[in-house]
């Protein structure tokens, strides 16, 4: 392969946004409430406070205040063994409370989709004045607020979706068209949440990288929403909508989608565009998946736990031309799942793990860390959805054993040393391998590990167009210096 420049990952950013009063609108909770199988009042008793959300260990790992290695010292269940005294801000980003999130929805909306009451607006103006990434100009866009009576009329007569904070009506989301099913208030909420979490995390990334935003050439969004009107459902380009509010004035962009595999695909595409010399600085960004909020709430309620799927995620990654020091995306060591590859675990892991490593003459045991689907098991297990990362690690270990690289007795040791417990919110493209990128960059830069393999899978069959799955992987490795 002819590569003109190595592509490096310079910096990452991760954010979470706490949305307890939006859990009721998540796809699953909304259906259960509408069918009368769940009472809203009961659901509300299982919602967490913002302080508990900040103190939740997996969330602290996500924003980088602690590392996945610290799990060894953290007693389970994590939701009962909270880390008090930790900040909502971390080296990778932040955990934003719901009121501030409503504020950025208002500020970064261009179509009067959001109305907030005057008293709530005044409160937000004060709260957001201390936020490091919100400017005075941003806050001016909050306006004076919409009279409460007008919000009530919109909710009652104009199909607007009420926005609650601590149970109080503080605003509404409006539909963008009276008949278009792709522009209803609910769809607008979903898309706007993806957009604003994407903007917030991109602003964090730019700050973390100390790069001038006008130096960014291109943005690739890998978010899981479908932006468009009835003639263009899923038409897309969330990337430019995000870049516009993140001062990336010299950037263009587009979206890359493949269910949960989208993020890793976007990283490989970006690295290739940089290596080919087309662009110098590319941001991969993923905003939150609102529809997955509360997806497994019944399992949490059944086990008398707080509803843990109460946060939206956001990720952003800056890829650049070689700087001689930052970890490299090794484009000679990538895996892809071909249409003829088959859907068996063997087939998928062969293309994701073995194929790329064999191209480099490497063994499975030559990789220091594997990043797989990093879903937090405390979210999935109560609903019987299994411990996703552990299953993935067991499968990789089994493959190493089948190939004679390790003994069967060494499986637990392999999983322990090359894997880690999940710590990501169950947000599809967000959870898919990339939450570990920030920690891996740090470990490689500190000389603690040499490489990490990132493998993502996409459930294409959910869209009922094919029985195929998707999968993609790449090796991140220590920079050997400028060529």
């Amino acid at each position, binding site marked *: 392969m002819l590569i003109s420049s190595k592509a490096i990952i310079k910096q990452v950013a991760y954010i979470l946004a706490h949305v307890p009063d939006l859990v009721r609108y998540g796809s699953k909770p909304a259906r259960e409430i509408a069918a009368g199988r769940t009472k809203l009042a009961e659901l509300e008793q299982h919602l967490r406070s913002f302080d508990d959300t900040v103190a939740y260990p997996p969330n602290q790992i996500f924003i980088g205040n602690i590392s996945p290695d610290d799990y060894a010292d953290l007693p389970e269940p994590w939701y009962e063994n909270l880390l008090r005294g930790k900040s909502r801000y971390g080296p990778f980003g932040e955990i934003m409370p719901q009121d501030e999130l409503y504020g950025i929805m208002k500020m970064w909306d261009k179509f009067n989709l959001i109305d907030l009451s005057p008293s709530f607006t005044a409160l937000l103006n004060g709260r957001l004045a201390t936020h490091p990434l919100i400017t005075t100009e941003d806050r001016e866009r909050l306006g004076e607020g919409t009279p409460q009576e007008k919000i009530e009329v919109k909710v009652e007569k104009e199909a607007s979706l009420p926005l609650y904070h601590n149970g109080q009506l503080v605003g509404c989301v409006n539909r963008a068209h009276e008949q278009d099913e792709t522009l209803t208030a609910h769809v607008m909420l979903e898309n706007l949440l993806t957009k604003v979490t994407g903007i917030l995390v991109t602003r964090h990334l730019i700050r973390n990288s100390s790069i001038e935003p006008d130096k960014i050439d291109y943005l690739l969004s890998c978010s899981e929403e479908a932006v468009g009107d009835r003639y263009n459902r899923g038409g897309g380009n969330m990337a430019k909508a995000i870049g516009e509010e993140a001062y990336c004035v010299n950037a263009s962009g587009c979206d890359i989608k493949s269910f*949960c595999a989208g993020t890793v695909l976007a990283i490989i595409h970006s690295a290739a565009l940089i290596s080919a010399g087309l662009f110098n600085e590319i941001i991969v960004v993923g905003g939150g998946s609102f529809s997955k909020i509360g997806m*497994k709430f019944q399992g949490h309620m059944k086990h008398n736990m707080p509803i843990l799927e109460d946060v939206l995620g956001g990720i952003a990654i800056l890829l650049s031309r070689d700087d001689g020091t930052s970890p490299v995306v090794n484009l000679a060591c990538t895996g892809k799942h071909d249409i003829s590859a*088959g*859907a*068996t*675990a063997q087939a998928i892991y062969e293309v994701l793990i073995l194929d790329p490593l064999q191209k480099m003459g490497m063994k499975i045991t030559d990789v220091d860390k594997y990043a797989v*689907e990093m*879903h937090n098991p405390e979210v*999935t297990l109560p*609903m*019987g*959805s*299994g411990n*996703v990362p552990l*299953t*993935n690690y067991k*499968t990789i270990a089994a493959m190493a054993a089948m190939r004679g690289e390790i003994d069967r007795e060494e499986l637990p040791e392999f999983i322990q040393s090359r894997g880690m417990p999940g710590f990501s919110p*169950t947000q*599809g493209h967000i*959870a898919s391998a990339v939450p570990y990128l920030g920690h891996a960059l740090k470990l490689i830069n500190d000389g603690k590990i040499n490489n990490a393999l990132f493998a993502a*899978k996409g*459930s294409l*069959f*959910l869209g009922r167009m094919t*029985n195929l*799955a998707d999968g993609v992987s790449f090796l991140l490795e220590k920079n050997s210096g400028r060529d």
Partner: protein
Amino acid sequence: MLNGVKIIAYGERDGIQGPSIVACVEAAGADVIYQATECFV
């Protein structure tokens, strides 16, 4: 046990997917009337 039996094949993304179950049980003489693969995350 499988020969001539009508089967609903219900696979999972991280385990054995629908098409794999179909290939295996059809070879054992079963008749698959429906197959799907679930993803719980």
